[in-house]
């Protein structure tokens, strides 16, 4: 069985419009694949299908050969498919540390124990270690005990990244993680993504910042109106005339 994430023949429609039309995609452990394309091409739809937020009309999604198709999002997360959101979905009242605690605890494949109804919500040793490591990675240690509601957008994106990677996911789906980040924050983000991949996590990166895509991605997949129109190395893909017409515009 193929290791990593496999997407085969995925199709989704929204009221007659085909948002995804037979998309195939493979993501091996440790690989960073860039997913680019014009707005409305189906990138977020693809991420939502893999994450379980959206049900596909046809096609299959599997992780290490095991199908994920009928699983709700929380079970996929417990299998190791974690994601970030284009519109951030943080928990404003919780601190950064509490975010990470919730994430690392909830992902345990065994699920919730009855004793957790009355425990003190403290991480065990292994969890604490994972939380501290994630905090260091995204550089939020000084702000670890601040309620996320008071953090600016850039920091919230990093909280989402940390929440997804705490405890080491098999697959990280990053939906425009650099959107709204300033160059300094974007640099932190790039470092984090590279190190996550270095530990064997497959990263699917939706991104409009082509400099970041060029710098990070092993492979680039271009979507247009729900179909893969090109894939290969960054240079190959950007040289493709179809891609230039559909995505890059006259600036390229």
């Amino acid at each position, binding site marked *: 069985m193929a290791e990593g994430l496999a997407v085969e023949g995925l199709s989704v429609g*929204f009221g007659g*419009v085909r*948002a995804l039309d037979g998309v195939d995609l493979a993501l091996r452990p440790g690989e960073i694949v860039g997913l680019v394309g014009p*707005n*409305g*091409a*189906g*990138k*977020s*739809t693809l991420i939502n299908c893999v*994450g*379980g*937020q959206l049900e596909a009309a046809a096609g299959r999604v599997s992780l290490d050969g095991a199908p994920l198709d009928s699983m*709700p*999002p*929380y*079970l996929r*997360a*417990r299998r190791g498919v*974690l*994601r970030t*959101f*284009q*519109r*951030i*979905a*943080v*928990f*404003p*009242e*919780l601190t950064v540390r*509490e975010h990470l*605690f*919730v*994430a690392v*605890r*909830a*992902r*345990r494949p065994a*699920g*919730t124990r009855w004793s*957790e*109804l*009355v*425990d*003190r*919500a403290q991480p065990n040793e292994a969890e604490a270690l994972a939380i501290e490591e994630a905090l260091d990675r995204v550089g939020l240690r000084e702000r670890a005990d601040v*309620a996320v*509601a*008071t*953090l*600016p*957008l850039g920091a*919230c994106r990093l909280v*989402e990244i940390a*929440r*997804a990677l705490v405890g080491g996911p098999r697959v990280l789906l990053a939906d*425009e993680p650099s*959107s*709204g980040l300033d160059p300094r924050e974007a640099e932190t983000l790039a470092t984090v993504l590279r190190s996550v991949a270095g530990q064997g996590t497959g990263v699917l990166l939706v991104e409009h910042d082509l400099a970041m895509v060029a710098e990070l991605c092993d492979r680039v997949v271009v979507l247009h109106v729900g179909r893969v129109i090109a894939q290969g190395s960054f240079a190959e893909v950007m040289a493709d005339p179809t891609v230039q017409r559909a995505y890059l515009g006259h600036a390229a």
Partner: protein
Amino acid sequence: MSTFLSYAVPGVPFGCTYAIVAMGLVLTYRTTGVFNFAFGAQAYASAFVYTVLTGQGVAVLPAFLISVVVLAPARGWILDRYLFRRIAATNTTAKLVSAVAIFVGLPQLVTLVFGSATRFAPPTLFLNPANVYFHLFSTPVNGLELETVIAAAAAVVAVSAVLRSSRLGLTIRAAVESPRLLELEGVRSDRVLSVAWMGSSFMAGLAGVLLAPQYPTLQFNDYAILLVAALAAAALGDLANVPMALVGGVLLGVVEGLGSGYFSPSSIWHTGLLPAIPFLVLAVLLVTRPRLRALEDSEDPLSGCDPPPPPSIIATRGPELDRIIRLGGRALALGAVISVLTWVPGNWAFTLTSGLVYSIMFLSITLITGMGGEVSLCQATFAGAGAFIAGQLAVHHGVPILLGSLVGALGALVVGAIGALPALRLRGLPLALLTLALALLADNAVFPYSWAGGPPGGLFVPRPVIGSISLATTSSKGFFVLALVILVLCVIGVKLIQRATVGRYLDALRASPIGAQSVGINPSAAKILVFALSAALAGLGGALFGSLQQSITPSDFNYQFSLVFVVVVVTTGVRTTEGAIQAGMGFVVLQQLLSYLPGRWGAGGLAVVLFAFSALTYASHPEGVVEYQKRLWTERVERLVRHGGQPPYTMATSPPKEPATAGSDHHG
């Protein structure tokens, strides 16, 4: 066939009364963004004024002008100006609770001002009610029925016209989606919404006056039932489609007409199923129609302009002050307990005891709304389940009441867990409506039976006997101690969950269900757990309530109590266990104090009115009045202590939060 028609035809005008209210609900929802429970109360208020005026000899036309053309829009203007305008467009809970508050408060206010004397049906607006104008399939059609059908037809045309084509309709729809975005176009959104509210209130007034002659006497209860039945008709049109709401209303009326024709009046179908049909339909629609589930999905694109909510005061106040306040609170509680046991007179001891029992029931709302983030409108039903189980066990099987109360709590827990199953995919308004439908199903199809809600004269629930001590009426102070112990245990339980891992999961789910699921939190398990535990608390409280009262009837637990409970707890403070206790004690103490007032002012309605009107402050302080006052006073004290230092949570400079890329690539 002719029998069929003779049953079906009279159902049409009856269904048209549903339809008129249903279309009014759709109009209000579409033009104000508020699901207006208050519609029933507004209709009643206009009908009341109209009835009073015509009863005093005022002619029909001036009475109509005053009650519908002048007073109804004025009421809408006031509601908008002082209540709904202050609520953020996306705050579903606040909008829902405020509307429910008006629903329970306004009729009580009317009764307070005008008295509760029986008032007979007012004259119809334009047709002679007794005159039979023609026969349809050999069924006589009288003026009353004809007038209702004509009004419904006129309403469908008028409401559709406002919503569909006109420029005003366009502007109103934009204002509902985002008042601020519309202001960027140079439009005064506040005025637009004012007009919308006035229009919707006019519609409510018109419906009220049209429907008043249908009932022999004027009673709010008829309007309340009408409103909740109309919900089903409105749901059939997804709360958006006006003609479908008309069709839905007429269908419901015809089905009821057929039902009451074919089933014999004594059959179980007639007494049990028939009154429950609208709520059954509503429940099924809510669970099955995807568009109803998605009602609350859109967001205000400019919500990023709002500053973040201030943190809970307990989290921000200094440690010394915290200690002082805790000590003070405990001293106060201890003083109250000692007072009750020593010098407080019997009627006040009883009042305070019932306050403790209410606090236990209200804790169930802390759990489901404060921690679970959902508004439930069937908490009194859960309480009733606990009370009736305990009472029936005691009466028929001689089970001791304390044991019976635990069994009752367990029974409610099971009911809550089962009730959560259809609600798994719902949140916000649709979920609240589903709980209301469940409450009404229980009211109509379960509690009326003697095996459930007891015999017509009331179900006897004994006082507990502990060892050789009987806590019968003579010694209600013993019951006070018992209730106190149980309340403390419940508070400890809720606080434990708040602090536990599961409490964190609930925080996460409340803030962002999609984010919480993406890290592995199981939303269904959490919802079932919260509903079950909340129902168990309510059931335990209900059983104790029964034991305290010693005799209970289904009307002690009907859906209107669920509504009052939610208003009382949410306006007091739903996020903390303290809020539930303050709500419980405040509710009974206020009622007892007001009972010293003379005449109808002391009859009990005033307390409900006061709580309903405190919902006005709730709009500006969604954390609850008590929580807000706590913050205010803590800040004052801290400022005093620090000699003019900064408020505790101010930081020197911290950047504003910029919203995420709203809306872009939704379908990408």
